[in-house]
Every structure is written in structure tokens, then in C-alpha cells.
């Protein structure tokens, strides 16, 4: 390769990397270097080589493949890609089926908050009433206040014994390494046996939140709760569904609650659309459950059970789900309210280990306490 063309070629590759970055892929300088190095022994005039070498060096996630494909076509073939084609999951089926999520007011800075709270006396209601106030009746300001209280909720998923061991005073497995080390002192007499014991670790927690129309008044609060939860405990996965399932674990990882909630809201397209609980749980079991995301974990479904889909589908999804995780907890805003259970609830209940109310903050705190002792 001549020097001049070589430089031009490298610039093309670097530009491609930049275009990918502009399209939202996390492509680092090191990745582009690897790409250039990978092309060295390959044929720069061969589009297939360009495509596959780039794909293996610049993309690290299956979800990014469609974007890569589109940018590649644009960059090397000059074919304008359709943005929709590249992001099939973000295309709403029917525009009227979803509306923007109204997020709680952004957190105010400390000083601002004081100014606001002084005249309003913590948004006009004291903490005790707020705790027992149904999420459905809360104003955005009250929800923001609730969020601050939620942060104090301690969530400790039940624990299970791990296969990993740690040194222990007493145990079942001898710790040969420590024993031998100490035997040096006694000239090879293993005078005291040291032990190891299996460690315990918290079970994984999977939250599956219903954000459909009938749950609209609760979903904001539940999402806040999910964010607090994912910050409070390790190994938490969060999913949302209305008509379809979306994983929002990564979106919620953001430290600032407002950013995290906004990102999650962007990721979920069917806020307040219809409900297809059966289909969504079925998708969860197929997509994630089968790969073991719930294995040994606690799956928490937050929904009112108002399903517009086929009850048989919900039944089979729940049956599979119950077999693939340790415990199923169902939080419903209407549980324990005395009303007749919805059809969805009736179908799902046999497979649920605990059915708990989730109408207000007191309920969520009760759930947090129950969770810790859920064997």
C-alpha cells in the first residue's frame, strides 16, 4: 500500500469510527486502532473484509449490530439508511398508544429546596400522611418528596450460599493454604487446622413493572422505587412492560435519579398504552428467564393484573416463570383492598409466592421487610 493512499485509507477508517460514535456506539480510539491493525493483512478494497473486520473489532454488543450495519452502508456505500430500520425496537406501533411519561419534578439543589419547603412545609403534607397516601393521588411535588423518603428504605434481598469460600473460624473444608503456611512455624506439623466456609451472597432481584394505562398513576412511583432499589442492592434487573417488554437496567444505572428516570422513560415506548401482561411475561421468560436471569433469584412483578391478552398465555408464562426462579412476588395496588380480583390475578395467583399491596409508601416498606425474610 502506497503511503499516500495508506493515509487516506486510515483516515477513512478513523472517520468511520467517528461516524459510529456519532450514531451512539461506544467506539474508543483503541478500538479504531485495532480495526486499522486488523485491516492490515486483509484486503482494503474488499467490502466484506471491511465489514466483518469492523464488526468484530468495533462492536461489543448484539444490540449495536443494526446501527453498525446502517452506518457502514452510509459510510462505505453512500446509501442513506433509514433510522427506523436500525432501531426497530424504538418504533412505536401506533402513535396514540403511547404518551410521554410525566416525570416528577427534577431534584432541586439544597438551597432551592429549603426555600421551597419553608413556605410549603414539605409540600403541604407531613411525612406520615404522605407515607399512607395512595400514589395515585400524589402530586408531582409529593412524588418528589416520596423519592427522598424512599432512599431511606433498606432493601435486603434474602441471601443464599455461594459456591465461593472464605476463610472461617470453623467450617467444613480445610484451608490447606493457611494450614501449610502455619505449619512452617511448627516444622511441618500441621498443628492447627484452618478452615474455609462457603460465603453467602444476596439473591438476584428482578423487578418487572407494569407501566400501562391502568397503572399510570403508580408506575412513576414504582419506577422511582426501582431506581432506589437498583442503587441500594447489587444484582438488580429492572424491566418495564405495557404492550411489550423493555429492559431498563442499564438506563437506571445512572447515578442522578432525574437522569436515570428520564433515560428509562426514553427507553420505554409504550407508557400508558394497553396491557398485555401474558405476552410481556412470556417474552420475559423466553428472552431472559431461559438464559437464567431469574435462576435462584426473586422476581417481583408490579401490576394490577388487568390483562387484555389471552389468560392461557399468562397462565403458561407464570407457570414457566415460577419454575425458573426462586420466588415470585406480585405487588398490586389493589391487593388487599377487598375488591374482586381481576381475571389476570386469578390466573396468576397459583404461581405467586406472595401477593402484596403496593398502594403507598407504607406498602413498599412492608414489602422491603418481607423481602428480607423471604426464604
Amino acid at each position, binding site marked *: 500500500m502506497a503511503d499516500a493512499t495508506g493515509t487516506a485509507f486510515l483516515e477513512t477508517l478513523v472517520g468511520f469510527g467517528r461516524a459510529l460514535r456519532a450514531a451512539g456506539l461506544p467506539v*474508543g480510539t*483503541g*478500538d479504531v486502532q*485495532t480495526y486499522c*491493525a*486488523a485491516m*492490515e*493483512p*486483509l484486503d482494503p478494497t474488499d467490502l*466484506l*473484509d471491511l465489514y*466483518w*473486520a469492523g*464488526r*468484530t*473489532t468495533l*462492536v*461489543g*454488543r*448484539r444490540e449495536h*449490530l443494526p446501527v453498525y450495519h446502517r452506518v457502514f452502508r452510509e459510510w462505505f456505500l453512500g446509501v442513506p439508511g433509514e433510522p427506523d430500520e436500525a432501531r426497530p425496537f424504538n418504533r412505536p406501533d401506533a402513535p396514540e398508544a403511547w404518551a410521554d411519561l410525566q416525570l416528577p419534578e427534577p431534584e432541586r439543589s439544597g438551597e432551592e429546596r429549603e426555600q421551597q419547603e419553608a413556605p410549603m412545609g414539605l409540600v403541604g403534607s407531613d411525612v406520615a400522611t404522605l407515607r399512607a397516601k395512595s400514589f395515585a393521588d400524589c402530586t408531582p411535588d409529593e412524588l418528589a418528596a416520596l423519592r427522598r423518603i424512599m432512599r431511606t428504605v433498606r432493601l435486603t434481598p434474602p441471601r443464599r450460599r*455461594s*459456591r*465461593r*469460600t472464605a476463610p472461617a473460624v470453623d467450617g467444613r473444608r480445610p484451608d*490447606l*493454604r493457611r*494450614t*501449610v503456611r502455619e*505449619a*512452617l512455624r511448627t*516444622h*511441618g*506439623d*500441621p498443628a492447627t487446622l484452618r478452615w474455609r466456609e462457603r460465603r453467602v451472597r444476596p439473591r438476584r432481584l428482578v423487578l418487572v413493572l407494569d407501566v400501562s394505562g391502568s397503572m399510570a398513576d403508580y408506575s412513576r412511583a414504582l419506577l422511582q422505587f426501582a431506581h432506589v432499589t437498583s442503587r441500594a442492592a447489587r444484582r438488580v434487573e429492572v424491566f418495564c412492560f405495557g404492550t411489550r417488554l423493555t429492559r431498563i437496567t442499564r438506563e437506571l444505572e445512572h447515578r442522578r435519579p432525574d437522569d436515570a428516570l428520564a433515560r428509562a422513560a426514553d427507553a420505554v415506548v409504550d407508557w400508558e398504552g394497553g396491557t398485555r401482561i401474558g405476552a410481556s411475561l412470556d417474552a420475559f*421468560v*423466553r428472552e431472559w428467564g*431461559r*438464559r*437464567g*436471569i431469574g*435462576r435462584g433469584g426473586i422476581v417481583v412483578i408490579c401490576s394490577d393484573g388487568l390483562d387484555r391478552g389471552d389468560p392461557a398465555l399468562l397462565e*403458561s408464562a407464570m407457570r*414457566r416463570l415460577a419454575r425458573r426462579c426462586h420466588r415470585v412476588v406480585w405487588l398490586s395496588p389493589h391487593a388487599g383492598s377487598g375488591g374482586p380480583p381481576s381475571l389476570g390475578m386469578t390466573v396468576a395467583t397459583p404461581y405467586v409466592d406472595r401477593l402484596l399491596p403496593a398502594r403507598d409508601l407504607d406498602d413498599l416498606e412492608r414489602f422491603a421487610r418481607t423481602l428480607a425474610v423471604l426464604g
Partner: protein
Amino acid sequence: MTRPASVAALTETLCAGGYLADRGLSTAAYVALTLDRPLLLEGEVGVGKTEIAKTLATVLGRRLIRLQCYEGIDTNQALYEWDYARQLLQIRALSEAALADEGAVDALFGPKFLLERPLLDAVRTGDGAVLLVDEVDRADDEFEAFLLELLSEFQITIPEIGTIRAERPPLVVLTSNRTRELHDALKRRCLYHWVDYPDFDREVEIVLVREPGVSETLARRVVAAVTRLRELDLAKAPGVAETIDWVRTLGAVGAADLDPQTVEDTIGAVVKDRDDLDVVRAHVHELSRG
């Protein structure tokens, strides 16, 4: 054996070894070999992620070193372990005076008493090895951290001995079924390839290469049936491995054709979920029509 000269050459070599790789997988493997980078393969169960590592080892004339990951796997099982029994014997054999000598104690934690586990074995073998770190997603996230040094530097640090480095790095292949997201730090050190189901004709070819005894007609019918199974709404769609298993099973029972009764009798080779079996039983006639 030397490295293949081009992607096409590698594809051919793999084919001769009984593995039909598509262009993407060949390129990924070729780049991994030329740049000495680990290759992370993700894909559905049974699409041949593990198999490619085995075949690469065979056709490149390298030794396959396999580390099957599981929860709780730690350095003692993956990297190295001290031979405690021999250490104890050695201490007892030494006199008190000898024990006072620093060198004697150092020797206790020297190479002589070190038991190799797969990762250390691979680093020592260097480019004579293909290291397969299988189902890395099954290990817990703590274990990923152990792998980082190995994957970026092809070296292992043992506190008592020092750093052991591969002079010429082994080919490292990691596979994951995506039961959980791998850490970005791990992914950054690897090339990435998503292994898809092969298309119809390729899958027929794969069956014929793996089971040369089978007739092409039967192979085509089985692949057609499996393709149909993947379209059915099954909890666990059959992979290529299942296709081959099914053909093998048909061979074992001496079936020359895929009639409804044979499907009924042998479906256990392909579908291994009770709920799925119910779905499949309703479609037996479609499957046997081919």
C-alpha cells in the same frame, strides 16, 4: 503449524476440519490470530461456539485447553494451586537448621510445588495452545477480574513466584450464552462476534460434513423440519447441535425417511422441554412433510 495466509485459507482449513464457518466468523478468527487478541463469541445455545474452538485447535495443530466456567470458580481451579501435601512432606524432611535458611523456604513456594490449572497451562504453552474459556457468563463477576490480566497481557501473576508471561500468546476463545451482561472491561479486551443460526443450505452442508453417512434428501428434510421448529413459538429453539443430534438419532434407529411416526419417536433428540413437546406434537405432520 503456521497461521493461515488469508481469511479464505482459514475458511478452507476449518472446512477440512469439519467446521463450516461463514465469512464473519472466519474473519473474526483470522483477525484474532493475526492481532493476538482474545475472541469473544456470543450466540444462541447450540450454534457451534464451542465447536469452533475445538476445530481451530485441531486444524492449527494446537493443544486445546478448556476451562469450563461455573459459579464460584476461583484462582485455585482456574490458574494454579500449591501442592500442599508435597509442601508438608518437604517441610518435615528439612532439618531445623535448613528451615532457618531463607532459600529453603522460598523453594517451598517455587515452581516445583506449583500445580498448573488451565489458564497457567495455556500461558506456559503459549502459541501451541488454543485456550477455550467456555460459558464465561456462568462464572460470577469476581472471576472476570481474574481474567483481565490474562486477556490483555497474556500473563499471570503469582505472588510467591512473580509474573509468568506467554512468549507467544495462545489463541483465546471465550464463549457466552448471555445469561448476564459481561463487564465492559472484559469486552474491551476482546474481539466480538455474534454467532447466528446458519441459513438453510449451509445447515444442510454442515449436517453432511458432520454425518457423511446420511443421504442428502434426509439431511434436507431434517433441516427443513428444524427450520420449521425454530419458527414455532418454542421456549427453547433447537440449535445446529440438535439438528446433528437428530440426524444421528435417525441413523441409530435406522430411519431413512422422516415420517410422522419417526418424528414422534425421535423428537426427544431435538426438543427437550415438556411444554415445547406439546406444541410440537400438534405440528408433527408439517414436520414430516419436509
